[in-house]
């Protein structure tokens, strides 16, 4: 990806037309090189900023300002770093760009630490950590932990510092970020040194140094060397300490990090002093002080003054020693003053900080939970859709089942006759051969017998034909109903179709309740004729309405003696089309049920009986499938009627 950046930039240069993509490319490249090459990074970011401003590309501008701020920090221009960073922060808050906001806050935290504004450093560090965690950005969160660890270290909260460094270390190790891992190790190393565990400090710092060298990170290497130097110094391994500090200084000058350079100079000065090389100590320390002033790094200033005071005292120059001692106290007071109030506020801040961290965690967990719930709901939706499809299928099969019961009955009768007349004919044929034989032998009775038999055989054959045709016509009419591709419209003789289904439904019902007697009244208007319908679907509607009517009167008959069940079917040709009314004198439909009767899955039948889909499907078929209407009227106690209208095309 890094190599591609350069190619991309070259391409943009060649094209020479400013656009947002170019801004992004410049920012990307600058972002990744701030640590190793802060000066060119800053130049690139400046270019990006100018271009973004010209294009009105606010996001690009915010990103660029963030990088500029950070590079200034890397070059130890702390006061100067604040302005672009705060501007970037304001932009991200306006445009709600949380990714850039988080990074800007991280950078700000570091700047505030350098300036000695620990309270702000903590506040920014925690906000950035929260954002990184919310965004699931573990790498950046790890860097936030690093920053927080440093801040806590500076205010003397070593437990929290430890916790944050460990958190950072775990994350970096897991993510395989070598520089991060090394940096966390330096933090921990210095912490152990401060708490008196020199062996541990030495171990961690050596590990860290190794990692920085492998990664080729000079600033990190310098950092590790610096801290190792301090540890050696403490052990009074002065030669090793000197080597470390000198190498560290060299690297820091090379990378242009002046604050770090200042640190090295101070440490060298202290080292020289410890060894008794006062002249060398004074040289280093004076240089350090000048540098500290130029970058306005107050902690460095008072550290330099303190060391100088000791050095001059060692030299015997008490005036200078006093001067520096006073300066030391003054600057320390300024910083400490802030530090003390920071410590007091720190208690408060820590509490709020922990709360914020918890809230961030809760939000993260809630997001995870929401995502999981969302997935669950998705799955449930799919399952419900599948179940719905299945129910509709079942409804179709259920009505088909009733249909087949009716059909079976209708066909059995003619087939019964075909079989029986055929069987009889076989017998008669056998008797015929007997009687013919008798005739040849001169038996006169036999001749009469032959005539009778032949007459019967002829008659039977005619009957076989008749009932065969009858069965055939039933099958044909059934095929008419079941025929056609799905949704195919054909001109349908409505009276015939309806009547067929009346028979089917009626026999289907009788098959289930052979005891049951219903008066059927059929009034068909001969003017009804043909209408274009999807026969399969219309048939289903008829069956549904008829079954409901029969079910209703059957129910009433169970509870009322002397009740005469009646179902009437009527067709009428009218100006707009055809009207079909199916009426029953059953128990009727109560008003609260009437309102819901066409609702899918709504049913008054006991559980397991029917699917409750019939009427809603019927309504669908008539209204949407055929542009007609299906309505219901009922007088509770007196019965119900369903009126179906089908329009003329």
């Amino acid at each position, binding site marked *: 990806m890094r190599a591609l950046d350069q190619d991309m930039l070259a391409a943009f240069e060649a094209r020479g037309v400013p656009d947002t993509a170019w801004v992004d490319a410049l920012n990307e490249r600058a972002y990744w090189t701030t640590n190793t090459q802060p000066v060119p990074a800053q130049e690139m970011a400046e270019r990006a900023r100018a271009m973004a401003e010209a294009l009105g590309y606010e996001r690009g501008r915010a990103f660029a300002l963030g990088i500029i701020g950070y590079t200034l920090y890397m070059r130890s221009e702390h006061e100067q770093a604040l302005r672009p960073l705060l501007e970037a922060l304001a932009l991200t808050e306006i445009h709600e760009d949380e990714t850039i906001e988080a990074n800007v806050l991280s950078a700000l935290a570091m700047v505030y630490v350098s300036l000695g504004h620990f309270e702000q450093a903590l506040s920014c560090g925690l906000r950035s950590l929260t954002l990184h965690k919310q965004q699931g950005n573990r790498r950046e969160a790890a860097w936030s932990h690093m920053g927080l660890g440093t801040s806590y270290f500076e205010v003397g909260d070593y437990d929290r510092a430890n916790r944050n460094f460990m958190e950072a270390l775990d994350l970096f190790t897991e993510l395989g970020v070598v520089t991060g891992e090394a940096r966390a190790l330096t933090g921990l190393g210095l912490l152990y040194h401060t708490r008196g565990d020199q062996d541990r400090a030495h171990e961690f710092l050596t590990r860290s140094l190794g990692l920085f060298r492998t990664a080729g990170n000079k600033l990190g290497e310098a950092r590790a060397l610096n801290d190792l130097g301090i540890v050696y110094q403490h052990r009074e391994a002065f030669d090793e300490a000197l080597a470390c500090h000198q190498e560290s200084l060299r690297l820091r000058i090379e990378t242009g990090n002046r604050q770090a350079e200042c640190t090295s100079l101070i440490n060298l000065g202290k080292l020289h002093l410890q060894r008794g090389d006062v002249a060398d100590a004074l040289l280093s320390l004076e240089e350090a002080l000048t540098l500290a002033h130029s970058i306005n790094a107050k902690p460095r200033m008072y550290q330099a003054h303190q060391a100088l005071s000791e050095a001059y005292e060692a030299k015997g120059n008490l005036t200078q020693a006093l001067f520096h001692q006073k300066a030391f106290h003054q600057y320390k007071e300024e910083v400490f003053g802030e530090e003390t109030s920071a410590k007091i506020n720190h208690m408060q801040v820590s509490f709020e900080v922990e709360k914020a961290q918890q809230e961030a965690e809760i939000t993260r967990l809630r997001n995870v939970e929401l995502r999981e719930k969302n997935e669950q709901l998705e799955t449930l939706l799919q399952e419900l859709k599948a179940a719905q499809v299945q129910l509709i299928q079942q409804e179709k099969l259920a009505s088909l089942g009733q249909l087949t019961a009716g059909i079976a009955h209708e066909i059995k009768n003619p087939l019964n006759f075909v079989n029986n007349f055929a069987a009889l004919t076989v017998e008669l044929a056998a008797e015929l051969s007997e009687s013919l034989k008798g005739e040849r032998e001169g038996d006169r009775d036999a001749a009469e017998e032959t005539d009778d038999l032949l007459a019967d055989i002829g008659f039977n054959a005619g009957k076989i034909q008749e009932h065969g045709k009858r069965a055939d016509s039933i099958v044909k009419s059934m095929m008419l109903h079941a025929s056609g591709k799905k949704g195919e419209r054909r001109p349908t003789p409505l009276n015939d179709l309806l009547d067929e289904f009346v028979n089917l439904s009626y026999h289907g019902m009788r098959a289930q309740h052979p005891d*049951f007697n219903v008066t059927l009244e059929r009034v068909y208007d001969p003017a009804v004729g043909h209408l274009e319908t999807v026969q399969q679907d219309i048939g289903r509607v008829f069956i549904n309405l008829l079954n409901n009517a029969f079910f209703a009167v059957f129910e009433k008959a169970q509870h009322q003696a002397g009740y005469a069940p009646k179902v009437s079917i009527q067709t009428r040709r009218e100006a707009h089309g055809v009207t079909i009314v199916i009426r029953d004198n059953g128990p009727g439909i109560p008003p609260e049920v009437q309102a819901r009767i066409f609702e899918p899955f709504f049913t008054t039948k006991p559980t397991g009986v029917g699917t409750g889909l019939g009427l809603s499907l019927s309504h669908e078929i008539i209204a949407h499938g055929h542009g007609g209407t299906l309505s219901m009227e009922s007088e509770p106690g007196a019965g119900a009627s369903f009126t179906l209208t089908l329009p003329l095309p």
Partner: protein
Amino acid sequence: MTNILVVDDEHDVQYLFKQYFRRQVKKGEITFHFALSAEDALEKLTHIATDLMLVLSDINMPGMTGLELLRIVKARFPRLRVVMITAYNDNDNRETALAHGADGYLTKPIDFLELQQTFAQFKVL
């Protein structure tokens, strides 16, 4: 002379009976009476019930069903045997028929050999 009443809404049923039992009919040993509905059967029964040896009735008929006829016949003419014939070969109808006092149960298509055996059982012939 044996008299049997056959109740079935199918008109052609009579030809089946007349042909299967043509010998007996020709010899005058058996006479079949036919009714096309339960109501018609009840009307005929008022005249010929005492002569009848057996009633054969379909179950599924428009108007009054065979089972209703069975109940009425058993109430009015307790010694008259009634055998139900039906197209439905399911246990529910069989049990209902027997519960209502039917003397037998046959399924369509009528096995006339089985019917002969039934007659013999009742010592009709």
